[in-house]
């Protein structure tokens, strides 16, 4: 996960920071859909990673098998996963919102297991790589800091997406409906907002973003059938640490997690993911609503 250009301590630290930011932004795009699902419907979707995996495999098929250009495949991955998410939401998820958290967990774990076995059956269990165009490979150096071309692309794409999300949430009619529904679902319903419809659209959009994240992240995170299980905990960390009441919380949490994970693996390889899990537990105990959550009444 760390680039090769390690000249001096300072530049090396900057390279790690750069990689960490790329990783963090990727995590944000992957997990923000989950944050909205949890905040809006109080629904625990452990199968969120399965949609990311779907996006990843979609890109692999489009690029490697059908020879589509990588950049053209990305929007398609988004679209496919969004449609998939919409279909699942309308047919299956919609029956589970009112059930207990235990039921939701059982249901979404079931989906995870099914997706793992299904992908294993169709695509095989080995790790897949997306064939990247030549201009995205390798890295260049700015003032001695190694900048991976692919990671730069991730930062640009994810940064644009984040800005777009923020604009949609803050400026559009749909965004204010969504925020109202997250803040207080009952009152929102009373005002005539179609919460179910808002939710279906948001779910589809969140799944699409996860799919896009999976497509972009296949190169960095690795793509194999156990992807949804492997990264489930990362998504949960982003959501628990960031809270679900805003989009800034999960964004900051993703950046922290990304930088922390990359730096941790580089500077303290023996500790590994241990630190991150422990931090999640501590945050959960200390502030169950998330570090960056507003003290809202919910």
């Amino acid at each position, binding site marked *: 996960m760390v680039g090769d250009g390690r000249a001096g301590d300072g530049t090396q630290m900057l390279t790690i920071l750069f990689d960490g930011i790329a990783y963090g932004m990727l995590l944000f795009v992957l997990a923000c859909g989950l944050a909205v699902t949890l905040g809006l419907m109080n629904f625990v979707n452990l199968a969120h990673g399965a949609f990311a995996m779907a996006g990843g495999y979609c890109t692999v098929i489009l690029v490697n098998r059908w020879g589509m250009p990588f950049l053209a495949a990305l929007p398609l991955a988004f679209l496919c996963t969004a449609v998939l998410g919409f279909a699942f939401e309308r047919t299956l998820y919609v029956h589970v919102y009112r059930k207990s958290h235990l039921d939701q967990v*059982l249901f979404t774990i079931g989906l995870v297991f099914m997706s793992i076995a299904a992908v294993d059956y169709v695509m095989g269990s080995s790790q897949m790589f997306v064939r990247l165009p030549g201009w995205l490979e390798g890295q260049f150096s700015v003032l001695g800091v190694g900048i991976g071309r692919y990671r730069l692309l991730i930062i640009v794409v994810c940064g644009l997406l984040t800005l777009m999300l923020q604009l949609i949430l803050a400026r559009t009619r749909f965004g204010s409906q969504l925020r109202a529904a997250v803040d207080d679902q009952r009152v929102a319903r009373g005002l005539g907002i179609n919460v179910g419809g808002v939710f279906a659209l948001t779910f589809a959009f969140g799944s699409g973003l996860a799919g896009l994240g999976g497509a972009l992240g296949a190169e960095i995170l690795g793509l194999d059938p156990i992807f949804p299980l492997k990264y489930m*905990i990362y998504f949960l960390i982003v959501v628990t640490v960031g809270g679900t009441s805003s989009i800034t919380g999960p964004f900051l949490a993703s950046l922290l997690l990304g930088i922390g994970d990359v730096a941790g693996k580089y500077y303290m390889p023996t500790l590994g993911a241990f630190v991150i899990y422990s931090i999640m537990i501590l945050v959960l105990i200390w502030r169950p609503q998330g570090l960056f959550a507003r003290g809202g009444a919910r």
Partner: protein
Amino acid sequence: MSPHRLADEVGRRLATRARWHPMEVLFWGAVLASIYILPGRHLILTEIAILGLFALSLDLILGYAGIVSLGQAAFFGVGAYVAGLLAKHGIITEPLLALIVSGLAATLLGFVTSFLVLRGSDLTRIMVTLGVALVLREIANRYAWLTGGADGLQGIEIKPLLGLYRFDMFGHTAYCYALGVLIVLFGLARRIVQSPFGLSLLSIKGNPLRAAAVGIPVNGRLVAIYSIAAGYAGAAGALLTQTTAFTSLAVLDFERSADLLLVLIIGGTGYLYGGLLGAIVFKLMQDYLAALTPQYWPFWIGLLLVAIVLIGRERITSWTRPIHALVARLDWRGRRSAPLAATDGR
């Protein structure tokens, strides 16, 4: 009714409730008979007994105290590794003693981590228990010099049970041993949930706030049952290590905790036998389906989970209802007295 007489009445009814039912006797009779009737199936029966014990541990906290856990494998894994290390390094070579020590080690971990599940909603508990299990798996993975890492803990030699009974390759000793442990621990669990302590747990599950209002020390009770359940899971893990003479990171896998929930959901929660019945159904199903396509076994688990939730858990466990009806009819404990709730309102 005076308070004194009421207390007597409650005590009498509790004692009646706690008596062994003919169906229970029949069930355990059948279990014991399996030693002689199915000598060729002792290997899978041992697995069922271990899974049943493990499910019992989850039932104690989920069915009686209402704590949803997605990390019960943490305690199972600790028990398994402690038993493995004790045997490998010859610290405690007698299996039964080692089992007790392993169970106690898991109980200790359960006690320490129980304070994490006292607060918060179901969701927080799910994530905290999941996090604890992940941390433990990560530790076991990192300290490969101790645990053998991804290769598993190899070179475990299990000495004869009580110095007398050697573990044979057909699993006869192993099955009798696992069954013995299961019966003893089941009896203990039954005693626990029938006691006033167990009743107080049920009231906490029903409504923690009201339970606290009538003077039940909610946190203390939850810590106690969580530690006990952890000990049960640890004993199950130790049994697995001792009967297979091997343990690996798989004992701490997330899938193990998820499967366990499924086992308990199949059998139903809150009456102790659910875990055992679920374990039988689950293992037989696994035996059949995994034989068809071992690689795609998770698909069927997943499908089952999704189907159970969509159909509704209450409806799924209703297959045990005719059994319950039969049980009620066969009751030898005299006429059914009216439920407690009907008389305590005066």
